């Protein structure tokens, strides 16, 4: 009986069809879900490494601003600037995710899963002559109960004075390193900003939250 039932169920599911999603039965939806789970490779997800796909020639030929984004677990990709002027500077990835920056600091992300819903500082950060006084940085994330959790961190921004050369996809840039050290409820993190002479953050390693960890950003266009 069980074998017959399963065989029939498999055939019937293969034969299932519907003119639109509203007419798809719960059985078929659930079986598709199981199939998707079973089809997923075991172990850590494998990602296409943009470092191997994107070359300096391609970046220069594109002639548009390009941002390289990588999270600590290895997933990476390039993003292009979302057209128009928004609240902050929003970058769009090919997977439909966005990263929004404000003067090179991480403002928000969308479409990455544990999104950073928003980030604010109690005063505007300056790369020219950073104020050594502490300030607050607030990070907002979505809790499991679909409410926003806002945590406030006390931070200081330090100009390390280290001027150094960065090599990003075969191009070299000169930048100064700034460190933003923050401490607050349940977390302590340090953001690093490599800022070039024009005040552009060429590279940053920025804290996103517990779910994603740190995000590395590299501004690739010259």
């Amino acid at each position, binding site marked *: *009986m069980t074998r*017959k*039932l399963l065989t*029939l*169920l498999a055939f*019937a*599911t293969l*034969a*299932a*069809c*519907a*003119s639109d999603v*509203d*007419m*798809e*039965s*719960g*059985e078929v*939806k*659930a*079986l598709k*879900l*199981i199939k998707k*789970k*079973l089809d*997923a490779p075991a172990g850590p997800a494998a990602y296409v490494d943009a470092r191997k796909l994107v070359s300096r020639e391609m970046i220069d030929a594109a002639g548009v601003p390009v941002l390289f984004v990588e999270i600590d677990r290895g997933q990476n990709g390039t993003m292009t600037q*979302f057209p*128009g*002027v*928004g*609240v902050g500077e*929003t970058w*769009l990835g090919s997977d*439909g*995710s*966005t990263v*929004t920056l404000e003067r090179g600091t991480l*403002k*928000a992300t*969308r*479409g*990455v*899963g*544990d*999104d950073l*819903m*928003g*980030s*604010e500082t109690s005063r505007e950060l300056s790369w020219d002559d950073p104020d050594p006084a502490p300030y607050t940085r*607030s990070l907002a*994330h*979505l*809790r*499991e*109960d*679909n*409410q*926003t959790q*806002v945590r406030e961190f006390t931070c200081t921004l330090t100009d390390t004075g280290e001027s150094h050369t960065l090599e990003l996809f075969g191009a070299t840039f000169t930048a100064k390193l700034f460190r933003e050290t923050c401490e607050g409820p349940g977390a302590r993190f340090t953001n690093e900003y490599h800022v070039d002479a024009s005040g552009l953050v060429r590279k940053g390693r920025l804290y996103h939250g517990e*779910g994603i960890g740190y995000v590395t950003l590299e501004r690739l266009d010259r």
Partner: protein
Amino acid sequence: MTVNYISHYAAAAAILIAGAAQAQEAPRVSVGNFGLPGLVDLPTARALPDAELVLTQQLHRTLERTGASFQILPNLGVAFRYSGHGEGGGEANGRLNHDRSFDAHLTLWREGRRVPGVAIGLRDFIGTGWYSSEYIVATKSVGQFELTGGLGFGRLAGRDSFENPLAKLSDRFSTREANVIGRGGTLGTINWFQGKASAFGGVNYALGDRVTLSAEYTPDLMRREAAYLDVSSPWNFGASYQLTSALRLSAQYLHGSTLSMAAHVALNPKRPPHGAGRETAPVPMRLRGFGAPTADQTDEATIRKVLAVDGFEVIALSEDADAIRLDVKNTRYRSTAQALGRAAATLQRFAADRVTRAVVVFREGGLQAASYAVDLDRAAAEQFGIATDGGLPAISTDDTETLSTREAAGARLTWGLSPYLTHRLFNPDLPLSVELGLEARAKYKITRNLSLDGAVRKSLATNLTENNRAGHGASRGIPTTQSDWGLYDINGQPGHIHRLSLNYADTLAPDIFARAHAGLLEPFWAGAGGELLYMPAGAPIALGLDIHRVRKRDYDMRLALRDYETTTGHVSAYIDAGGAFDLEVNAGRYLAGDWGATAKISRQFANGWEVGGYATLTDVLFEDFGEGSFDKGIYIKIPMDWLTGEPDRARRYFEIRPITKDGGARLATARQLYQQVRGARDAQLRRERGRLWK
């Protein structure tokens, strides 16, 4: 009995798979064979994490026990189980009897550095009282050891019993009143914590992160099982292994004679396997003013394109001086907050600068389910906002005019063909019976408000027909309404019309919804009727009225009808303040002509989970109702987006209804408006406000 679907099993399996792969680690609390915090058979004073749902299966030679437990409140857990006892009997798998039972476990205080946690509990306090007992228990952790000691009453006061210490407080605790079971299903005799007491105790030892060893001394003499179970020791031993974050397996040696195995699956709505979920980013809002480029014209074509890609069906889009109105059907996002935010972001980006206000109207099956006004300038400021006041300053409910949508719908004919799987539970001869078949469905929309909807089913493989009790078990002295479900199962085998009805739904005024339908309304009933729902925006209460004239369908579920005809109807009140619990009360006339009321209480989670229970009391006497005394059940709704982490509006529905009798029987399709619109209303929006700009 209850009918459910394969999707229930499938969803459960998916949860397991998902849970195994990605669920966050749950705080470990050892669960006993009764599905609540425990050693082996005995309880501990621990509490499961709030909202924890545990499924338990225990098996040994003379016992099969299936249970579900839920931590309703941080300090209150409840459990339901269905047990088959004995061997060599006439019921399924040779069992002598099958029994349903309910437990409650209340944590009085949690363990501190120096003081143990303390809990009290009731076992099998509703029904026949097979396990009828109570306990007061204390638990303290010392290193890797978890030490438990307690006092048992009732069945847990068998071995080395002594005078009840509570008798010093009141004489009523001195002697235990005998259980008066009646037809089961009720509290029966309130003899809790009465009579002699016995001490019990035990220890859990955590051997690393995954293994727990348990030993317990039980005062339960197992007298009810003595005829078939060799009880030669008061000691029980167990070893359990946490195989995945969701699944725990146990092996046990019980009563000095019996090997037993158990499995526990633990889920928690508060531990989504995919976190907050992943979807493509919403359209970023644009900067208006501050020297940003201006937009003199609304780009309607782009708005329509973007919304279509984002899973919205645009029904109407209109603009006046400073406002834009969008009527949409949301086909993708279960969270209305998220749907609203994405629609508003699209309007903010592509509407002209002069448009500072948007009205987004959500439509569901011909109804204007909810409408919201969005201050587009504030929305732009709030999208990455850090507001901690919990408010939604950019959003307000809006009693906008209903738009006439009596025009023809876009896609007139929709259809589907797919397998179905139904099962029935709790037949002692056949505790789980299953049927697989094919279902063909079609819906023809005559207008957006009027449609013809039907489904036919043909069984392919079944053992529903092996039901020797089909047609038996009717309630006494009232018409048969649903206790003959087995006859429908058997006679519907050649193929049957599952439903075929003409349906009309409309919004009479912004907060007043109406629905009417006629035809073969559901498998057992044909007829005509309708309902009205008044659900004021922003108010925590809604009121409903439904009335139907129905006639019982013939057992073959084709076009013929049986003789019994009746009028059924209810007035309803629905209370949802956007908090943790919802209440629904329906009062009126049921299908057997009995008068009474149904109360339903459910715990609502912001991510779409819902866990609830209901009970119906009517003027049918408990002894006439039959086994179970009155109609009751528990249910769970699990959202698909919680399972997959991807946007999906569907929720899977599981119901456990221990007994299906004729009293308190309701027409399943009588009340649908509230469920149809509530997800779009502001109470649910507030629950999920964090998703607004996600």
